[in-house]
């Protein structure tokens, strides 16, 4: 700037600089509002869940909710033992995770380390399309294909019906596999090339490099991917509603119809429960339980991820 300004005060910013600083402040303010609104929405959800849930537990004891095993909240006389939903939720989630995590990891390894460029260019868009298929389509795929042709064929331990948590679990697994693949491939791609070269330079083969260097270095990202996939599986409603039926059986037999917490909410939410009725409040009580379980699982996984971070940094 000109010498006269400098003579007045060399430490004062120029006019242009001042305007920039003002814009900077505005941007900061705007971003703060956006961030705060995220927190506000979460708080709002919790508040909306809590009030009807409290009303629910005024009429139904926590002992009955968590201590009995029959779930017929919309029948006369009603039963409010939530365990069938918990078991249903974990059955579907475990089946889905058992399919999606190894499957997604294998595809991610193949794509990032083995596939040629041309194959990768063809496969990646297919995965992205698969990730964008509406879940209701997956639901009908479960009823028409997975149920009769896959689940019914591989489940030999009991009579498997038209609706089963196995069919739902397999389909949810397929639904979340592309996400598992993409997230873990990103984690592997983030492993510095220098590390990979370091392993090859010691005479390691491709497989030894994958298992000895890339996998451990990407592990915290892969675990995070698994956690997101798991949360997604717990929350999936439509597929489960269509493929596992709407009977809350208290059973560990995945050949049977089952209800999960999400599919119960979806199912009961569709029927008209008068506002304020116990049936209406049940939806929120189950919603709160789902919230708490997801929250605990997330905390737990964060701990695991943090542990692995500590080891490697």
């Amino acid at each position, binding site marked *: 700037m000109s010498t006269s300004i400098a003579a007045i005060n060399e430490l004062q910013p120029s006019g242009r600089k001042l305007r920039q600083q003002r814009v900077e402040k505005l941007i900061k303010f705007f971003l703060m509002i956006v961030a705060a609104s995220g927190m506000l929405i979460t708080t709002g959800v919790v508040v909306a869940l809590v009030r009807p849930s409290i009303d629910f537990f005024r009429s139904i004891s926590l002992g009955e909710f968590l201590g009995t095993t029959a779930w017929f909240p919309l029948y006369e006389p009603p039963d409010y033992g939530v365990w069938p939903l918990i078991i249903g939720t974990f059955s579907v989630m475990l089946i889905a995770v058992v399919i999606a995590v190894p499957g997604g990891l294998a595809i991610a390894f193949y794509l990032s380390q083995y596939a040629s*460029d041309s194959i990768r260019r063809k496969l990646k868009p297919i995965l992205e399309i698969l990730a964008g298929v509406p879940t209701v389509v997956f639901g009908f795929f479960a009823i028409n294909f997975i149920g009769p042709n896959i689940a019914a064929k591989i489940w030999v331990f009991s009579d498997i019906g038209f609706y089963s948590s196995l069919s739902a679990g397999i389909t949810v697994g397929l639904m979340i596999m592309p996400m598992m693949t993409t997230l873990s491939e990103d984690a592997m791609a983030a492993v*510095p090339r*220098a*590390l990979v*070269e*370091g*392993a*090859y*330079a*010691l*005479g*390691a*083969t491709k497989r*030894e490099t994958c298992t*000895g*260097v890339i996998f*451990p*270095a990407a592990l915290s990202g892969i675990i995070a991917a698994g956690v997101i996939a798991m949360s997604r599986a717990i929350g999936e409603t439509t597929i489960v509603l269509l493929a596992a039926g709407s009977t809350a059986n208290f059973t560990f037999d995945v050949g049977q119809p089952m209800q999960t917490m999400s599919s119960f909410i979806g199912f009961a939410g569709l029927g008209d429960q008068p506002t304020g009725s116990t049936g209406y409040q049940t939806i929120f009580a189950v919603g709160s339980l789902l919230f708490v379980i997801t929250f605990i699982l997330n905390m737990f996984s964060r701990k695991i991820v943090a542990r692995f971070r500590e*080891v*490697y*940094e």
Partner: protein
Amino acid sequence: MVDKMVNATIPEVSSTLPKVGSVLRMNLAEGQSSSSANFANEMIMESVGLQVHYGDFLAVRDVNLTIHKSEITALIGPSGCGKSTIIRCFNRMNDLIPSAKVGGNVFYKGIDLYGPEANSGEVRRRIGMVFQKPNPFPKSIYENVAFGPKVNGKPSKKETDEIVERSLKRAALWEEVKDRLKQSAFSLSGGQQQRLCIARALAVNPDVLLMDEPCSALDPIATARIEDLMAEIKTEYPIIIVTHNMQQAARVSDRTAFFNTEIGANATRPTGVLVEYDTTRKIFSNPSDTRTEQYISGRMG
């Protein structure tokens, strides 16, 4: 061919390698003999007409080098003249770059590295490499050194312990880390990390060590330690080092190869060429090529 290469002495080298041979003869005629770069040092590797394309781009061409036991060979030259590209041909690291095409030959004890008898994994085990930036694995100090032995023959726990200790001692790092082998390699300083990478490379007992600007990310004290280390281990592990630091080449190496770039007849981008390869003393005191002389005098100031 194989036998000849293994026991290469001067007359044989000059008969199979007219270009390099003539340089050597010239040296003899001048009565030059560097303290350690004497011609009794058996040749262990050589490149003949080595050239590398990246796609259609000819990055470097016509590189004829001989690498000798107990010696340090320095590759110097301006940035982009293909030093890294060439050194990566000596352990087939360029295989990992899909667009890279290697032409010509690199012989190790007379065996063509790119021929049917050579397996890339075994090549890289025999010819170790240390990179520009220290790249320890995100594992403990111990596991970093043990990684190579583990993928090359699964030694017992006791054997692995011995290899780790021996390698760390060889890399002059043992005293600093012996009480914290289980700690993460990232807890070490940059210079220590680079010595850990050297230990990691030595743990698979290579025959040659490649170093691509190993000190460029280090401070002068750490650099001096690595240079001392190189001088100490070169009798066991002949070294090829890329360096942008003239003084370093002059200090540590026995032979120096000077690379430069030139634009080919139909090319748009400059291609690297080997201008001159000789004993370090000759290159720095009395180079044959004016381009070498200009570069050296410009850079040494």
